[in-house]
Structure formats: structure tokens, C-alpha cells
């Protein structure tokens, strides 16, 4: 049976707790609070109620028939996380963590964000529960994701642009960690992906697993069987784990995570630690990292702010090493092509992050028979990305 992580947060050699001593007590407190509530019927009932009435779950599975026909191979199905309230899968997790924060009596929540989706989802639950909310966001990302910055502000959050390092997601995470260590007693750090120190990778996975659980029953209902392949984009990897986890023991379903190859792996300008990195320690856990030979973390590049991160959740590292999942990477241009294809063929504007998963599906579908099923996690909608896409086309909005 698949039973990871162990009690200290290890997925084989990956995961663990690598933080400064000041945070150890807070992490232990979170671990014990989560142990107490994770199987608590009342906690679960509240979580499910919120997912239904606030998020609008279950999210449908939609058959992208016209695009599949055009590609001329396997049928592409989309798990529509883009239809969730706030426009992405991120809110599944922020609701769960905010419920923990309230039970711990924390009045202030902080978050890091790349594309801004996790920041918006955190600001949303903070507003709803009346919690103070501070979101750290790389200064570079503040520029390229302006609509989400304004959205967070509308929701009452303070957005702090982070000017250090590469001014992207990793630096936002450094800064959030620094805030947490300074305000550790009043503050709950809502981490948005399946990374960070244990128990975060497990907590975020558990909350996001609603995606895969729903998919399993929806697939049976609509198609009488499970898909042949799952495809999801991987930055930190939360939407992918959310879809994959309930399928891990169902070995007939092949699972593929798709990283950002940026300008191309060979150029060095990418964000693909699983495809082109090596193991190391960053942000509280051991996993694959994009790093140089001296152990310094490399600047990454992706058109999609949400994938522009040098690390990846430790469970993905483990799934890669064990071969249970495989990982591919697609370039900025391939992702953009898929973005436009979904707009034109299906009337859906996907997030640039999710467009990476779509691009990989578009590559493999034609190599498969027409009766095969590929379930792609459409993790977010693309409204936030229209400025980026317009700019690339030389259009000023």
C-alpha cells in the first residue's frame, strides 16, 4: 500500500523538515493540529460544505470533442478546476488551511504567490473569515499578473512586492518564511503548493485530493471507466498531486506531470527541476531543484508565473524516482499554442500554467487510438493571463 509520507514527512529520501530552529515549534503545532482534525467528521463536513456552496464543486469533467477531433487521436477530457470560485484549484487548499488557522486561533494569515491564484484564493478565504491577510509576491510577478494583484487588494489583502533575488515565486516564498519566523505566534502561513516543510506537502495534497476523488467517480458515471492517462502541469505540483493521489494505486492509469521548459531545456532558461534538475534542499524540504554545481539555486524562466519556480513538491520527486509518474516539459511557445487552441476549439480560455498540461496532451493524443481517454487537469482559467498574451502579440490592452 502507498503510505507516504512517514511520520517525519519523508517520501523516500525526499521531503522532511528543513527550517531554522525558531519555526520548529510552529511546525510541530501544525502537525499535531492537523493530526487531530484530518479525520474529524465535523471538520470534514465543514470542508465539504464549503467546497460545495462556496467553491461550487464538484467541478465538471468536460469532453473537449472538437479539439480531440482536430488532433485526431485520443479523446481529451478536461477536469474543470477553472470553474471554481476564484478561477483555479488553489481555493480547495486555502479553505482547508484557513479552517485550521481558525481552529488554532490565528488572526493573521500570510501567503506566497506566483501567478496570483493562490494569493487571490488566500485573500478570498481571509475576507470571508475576517482574517488579516498579507500576500508576498515577486515584484516581477506583480507586473505580469496585475489583474490578480488588484483582485487581492479588492479582497482586503496587503500585497507586498518582493524585490530580492529573481523577484519571482521563490523569493516570495523566502519572504513569507521570514514573516512567519518573525510573527510565528500570531500568524498562520498558508502555503499554496505541495512543498515547504512537513506537514505542508501532505496537508495541501490531502485538501487538493478532492480533484482526483471527484474525477474517479465522475469518470465511472460518464464513461464507465477510468482514463488511460492523467496529465497535469507541475510548478510546485499541487494541482497534479490533487489529481494523481487518488489514482496512485490504480496502476493502469498512467500519470504525467508537465513542467515548464521555458525557452527550452537546452537553453538553461526553464523551470523544470524534475526533467533537468537534481536533488537538494530548499524551502523546508528535499526535492529536485534547478541549481548549479555549487548548490546555488538557479534563476528560472517560464511564461507562466505559477510554474516559474526552481523546486517541486517532494512527493513528485518520489513518484518520479519510483516510476509511478513520469514527467515531461513543454516550452513557452508550445504552451501558448495550446492556449490559443483551447480558446478557438472549445471556447475556454485556460491559464498559461494549465496550458502546459494541454500542450503535452496535444502532443500525445495523436499517438493514441481514438477510444483512449486523456484526462487533463484544467487547473485554472486564463483571464489573468490576457495581458501577457496580448503583449506577446504586440497588442496594448
Amino acid at each position, binding site marked *: 500500500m502507498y503510505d507516504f509520507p512517514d511520520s517525519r514527512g519523508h517520501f523516500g529520501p525526499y521531503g522532511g523538515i528543513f527550517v531554522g530552529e525558531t519555526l520548529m*515549534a510552529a511546525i*510541530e503545532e501544525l502537525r499535531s493540529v492537523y493530526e487531530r482534525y484530518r479525520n474529524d467528521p465535523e471538520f470534514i463536513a465543514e470542508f465539504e460544505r464549503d467546497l460545495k456552496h462556496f467553491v461550487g464543486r464538484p467541478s465538471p469533467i468536460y469532453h473537449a470533442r472538437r479539439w480531440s477531433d482536430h488532433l485526431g487521436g485520443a479523446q481529451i477530457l478536461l477536469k474543470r478546476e477553472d470553474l471554481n470560485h476564484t478561477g483555479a484549484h488553489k481555493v480547495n487548499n486555502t479553505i482547508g488551511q484557513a479552517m485550521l488557522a481558525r481552529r488554532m486561533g490565528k488572526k493573521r494569515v500570510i501567503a506566497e504567490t506566483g501567478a496570483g491564484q493562490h494569493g487571490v484564493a488566500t485573500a478570498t478565504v481571509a475576507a470571508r473569515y475576517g482574517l488579516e491577510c498579507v500576500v508576498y509576491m515577486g515584484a516581477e510577478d506583480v507586473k505580469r499578473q496585475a489583474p490578480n494583484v488588484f483582485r487581492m487588494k479588492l479582497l482586503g489583502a496587503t500585497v507586498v512586492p518582493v524585490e530580492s533575488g529573481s523577484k519571482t515565486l521563490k523569493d516570495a516564498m523566502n519572504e513569507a518564511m521570514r514573516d512567519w*519566523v518573525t510573527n510565528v505566534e500570531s500568524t498562520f502561513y498558508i502555503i499554496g503548493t505541495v512543498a515547504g516543510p512537513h506537514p505542508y506537502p501532505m496537508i495541501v495534497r490531502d485538501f487538493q485530493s478532492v480533484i482526483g476523488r471527484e474525477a474517479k467517480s465522475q469518470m465511472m458515471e460518464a464513461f464507465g471507466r477510468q482514463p488511460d492517462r492523467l496529465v497535469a502541469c507541475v510548478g510546485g505540483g499541487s494541482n497534479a498531486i490533487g489529481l494523481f493521489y487518488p489514482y496512485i494505486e490504480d496502476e493502469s492509469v498512467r500519470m504525467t506531470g508537465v513542467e515548464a521548459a521555458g525557452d527550452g531545456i537546452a537553453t538553461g532558461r526553464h523551470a523544470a527541476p524534475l526533467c533537468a534538475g537534481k536533488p537538494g534542499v530548499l524551502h523546508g524540504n528535499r526535492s529536485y531543484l534547478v541549481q548549479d554545481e555549487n548548490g546555488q539555486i538557479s534563476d528560472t524562466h517560464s511564461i507562466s508565473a505559477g510554474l516559474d519556480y526552481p523546486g517541486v513538491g517532494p512527493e513528485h520527486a518520489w513518484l518520479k524516482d519510483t516510476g509511478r509518474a513520469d514527467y515531461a516539459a513543454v516550452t513557452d511557445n508550445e504552451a501558448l499554442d495550446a492556449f490559443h487552441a483551447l480558446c478557438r476549439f472549445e471556447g475556454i480560455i485556460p491559464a498559461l500554467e494549465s496550458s502546459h498540461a494541454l500542450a503535452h496532451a496535444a502532443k500525445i493524443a495523436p499517438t493514441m487510438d481514438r477510444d483512449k481517454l486523456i484526462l487533463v487537469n484544467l487547473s485554472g482559467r486564463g483571464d489573468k493571463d490576457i495581458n501577457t498574451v496580448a503583449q506577446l502579440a504586440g497588442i496594448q490592452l
Partner: protein
Amino acid sequence: MSRIRSAFEKLGKNGQKALIPFITAGDPDPVLTVGLMHGLVAGGADIIELGVPFTDPMSDGPVIQHASERALKYGVSLKQVLGMVAEFREKDTETPIVLMGYLNPFEAMGYEKFAVEAKAAGVDGVLTVDCPPEEADQLLDSFTNAGIDPIFLIAPTTTSERIAKIASVASGYVYYVSLKGVTGATHLDFSEIEDRVNEIRKQVDLPICIGFGIRDESTAKSASRIADGVVIGSRIVQEIEQSDCQSAVKNVTAFVTSMRRAIDG
């Protein structure tokens, strides 16, 4: 006997407290580091903490982050840092040197190789900021085999259970983080710190040094009354930041001299 242990024994005999300045290796320019280290000793440093630059110094405030960034502009690697220590040792065989850094560069070199080469260069202790004892088994084995003291942090939030765990693996000295937060923060409550240090003494049979937030004569003096040593980091890095290359050594030496007077006085 290790250099760190003999340093504390000598201080104890003289009724003195340890002055432990921190600088980041390679800041502001790799050619200045060895000179700065000698300057620290000339100013009265008993032990030098030498920061290994890292791209993502999660536990550091802006001052030491910028020091890391300046050093990394020159591509300063762990290997080069060890080279600086070896060069320092050509003229100073006595002052203990403790490397302070994050785990990933150590891991990239390989624990075994790192420990052996660090020892050969003249490193006495290593403080790995983001590696708690629970994750440190292999690292500690390498340090023990090489004869390097693993230095650990104890925080205001550390439970007595964890203090016991840290006490069981630490050697050299322990570093009490005097406040919740990152390096370079302010607002110290010395009566609270004193209570904590006295509690820690019941469980830890090593010298206890205080750092984070020590920035002037008054805070250095207060800290030295409570603890066996005082670590001063961000304030010295600031001195370097505000000096030009010609005056950096002189200014840093003068500042350390004033700290020495404060804690001896």
C-alpha cells in the same frame, strides 16, 4: 582539544566573554575577506563566524541577504570560501572559525567531502541554519569523523524536549537566537533572554552565545552579562556595506574594538 574549546577555556580563565563577529565570505569583494578576518581578530574577536553565501537565505534579514547577493555576484562558491579559510590560517592558527550557511551548498559538495576539506582548510565548526538535528544524522557523522563541531541554534520557541535533543548532538557552543525573526531584527528584552538562557543552562553543558539583534555597545554589554559569548552579524555587515573597499577593514576593526570594550568593561 578543539580550537573552540580552548578559546572558551582561555576566556573563562580570564573572566572574559567571547566576542563572535560574523561576516559573509566574499562580501563586498572576495579579495577583501581574509583581510577583514584578520581585522576582526585585531579588533578583539575570539571566534569568527563566516557566512557561506546562498541564493535563498530564508532566515536572514535584508542586510545579510544583500551581503550574500554581493558575494554571489563574484560567484563565490563553498570551495572558494574554504580557500579563504586556508589563506587566513597561513597567518592565524589560533582563532576558531565557524562556517554559517544553508544546507544545499554543503549537500551539493557532498557531506563527507565538505567535512574533510573544511577541516583541512582550518574550519572548526559549522552551523547549518536550515538543518535541525532530526535531519542531520549523516551530516553529523561526517562532522564527527572529520573533527568539526556542529553548532546548533536554540530559539525562544524551542521546547525543553528539543533543547535536550540539541544538547545531545551539539558541540563547541550553542547559539541562542535572542528573538523571533530573521537576522538583523531589533527590540531585545534582556530579562526574558536571561530567564531563557538560565533555563537552557540546566540542559546544555556547553558555552551559550547570544545573537540576532546585538547592534551596539549597550546590547552587546547586556548580552555578555547573560551569556558566554555575543554574536554580532548584521551590524558588522552594515559597517562593510557603508565602507568603501579601502576603508572597510579599518572601519570593521574599529567597530569590533568598540564591541570588545563594551563586553569587557
